[in-house]
């Protein structure tokens, strides 16, 4: 790639970054009417949180069980204590699976839905209609989604942690890979409460990224149905990349 090509790509990235922060600045203004804001917030909490609960529950339950069985399969060394599977399941769920992997799954479900909703509103001129009425469309449409995501996704993650650990417990009952008592002992062994703080801090940041990056791509969709699809894909791809990047940064900062 020529130096000009690299420059053009860098300029493009900086332009999008600038537009993203300008959108956030418009979003974080005082809503026209708090009553309408709270009405929209409750709708978004239902769409982002309540409607994702079933998916998160099923995934976490099965993943907890799988982590336990895989740990038992790998920890066959007599030097490794029998309760290590419980520790591994707990820490895997708390540190990585629930906050990061569930948020990445939510990018696919919630992020694409936010991008396609806003993209459709853009191409059918509904956003223009709001602007003509004198409504700040970013504040009206995007802010409730970001606030709802930041408020409700941590609860989904707490539910995921609990269900994942419960999934491991069920696996001890169904399979004979680990004894239930050893698993429960392992869950309690060397528990660091700070892991919950770490996981929830990551979750809040990821929730903000997944809602705002998806909203940015949807809000700036141009053209027709094809572009709405593209904006939805871009929302998922970029949210995923940014979340993975921040996962590394936050892990380094918080667990150093």
């Amino acid at each position, binding site marked *: 790639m020529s130096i000009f090509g690299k420059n053009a790509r860098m300029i493009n990235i900086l332009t999008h970054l600038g537009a993203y922060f300008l959108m956030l600045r418009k979003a974080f203004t005082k809503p026209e009417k708090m009553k309408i804001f709270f009405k929209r917030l409750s709708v978004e909490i239902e769409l982002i949180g309540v409607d994702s609960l079933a998916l998160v529950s099923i995934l976490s339950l099965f993943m907890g069980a799988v982590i336990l069985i895989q740990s038992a399969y790998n920890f066959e060394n007599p030097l490794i204590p029998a309760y290590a599977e419980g520790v591994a399941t707990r820490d895997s769920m708390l540190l990585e699976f629930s906050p990061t992997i569930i948020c990445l799954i939510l990018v696919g479900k919630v992020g694409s839905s936010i991008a396609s909703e806003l993209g459709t509103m853009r191409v059918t*001129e509904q956003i223009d209609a709001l602007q003509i009425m*004198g409504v700040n469309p970013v504040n009206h449409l995007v802010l409730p989604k970001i606030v709802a995501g930041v408020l409700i996704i941590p609860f989904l993650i707490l539910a995921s942690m609990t269900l994942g650990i419960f999934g491991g417990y069920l696996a001890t009952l169904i399979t004979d890979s680990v004894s239930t008592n050893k698993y429960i002992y392992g869950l309690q062994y060397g528990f660091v409460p700070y892991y919950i703080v770490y996981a929830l801090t990551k979750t809040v940041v990821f929730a903000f990224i997944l809602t705002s990056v998806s909203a940015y791509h949807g809000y700036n969709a141009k053209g027709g149905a094809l572009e709405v699809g593209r904006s939805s894909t871009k929302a998922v791809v970029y949210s995923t990349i940014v979340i993975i990047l921040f996962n590394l940064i936050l892990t380094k900062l918080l667990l150093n």
Partner: protein
Amino acid sequence: MIEIGNISKVFGDRKIISEVSMYLETGKVNMVIGQSGAGKSVLLKCLVGLVETDGGEIWYDGRNFTDMDYEQKKELRKEIGMLFQGGALFDSLTVEENVAFPLEMFTNMSKSERLDRANFCLKRVNLPNSNKLFPDEISGGMKKRVAIARAIAMNPKYLFCDEPNSGLDPQTSIVIDNLIREITLEYNMTTVVISHDMNSVMEISDNIFFIFSGQKWWEGKRNDLLKADNKELCDFVYASTFMKEFKDFRK
């Protein structure tokens, strides 16, 4: 009254609008006509501030719109009603909620007052029994009427219509045209209609502005249009066989 002074708009290296000036009268239907791609819709978007102009001025009853900041524009926009090509109704709201939306956003009316006003507007556009339907449950013509009802809910001083007849059958088109004209007179609004439908032009226009290649090529009244000898205008007006026959008949 809206005055436009030498406004221009450039996209990349393409000049879409080139120093257009107009005087849009209050209580009249001001029609902007021209071929597809002539720059009519961009002109309309410049007028309402959806697209920033690259030069010139727009005055709304003595208020310079081009010099206003975001908040001032937001205030002025409360006096503007707009009818979009596809209606631009909010999918998640019922017909009644769509009409009541600006009232809920900008007034302190109670819910019953808002619904009364929404029902009044819906009756005004001859849609009395569709309140609880969603936009995807109504026809294209009904959507346009709901959009007009929403546009007039706040008693606007200015009404902008972007191709109000696109996608409608001739009978429904006439209903929408007449509604726009009646409402303009009833509320004494400054109405701007973008169209390339000659039926609409002949039905409801008071002032006509012909845009060609981003420039104002011609302006005049309905009767002047048929006498005009401007080549580009004549090519546009008499493009259809019907209009050609009409011209021959007049001769």
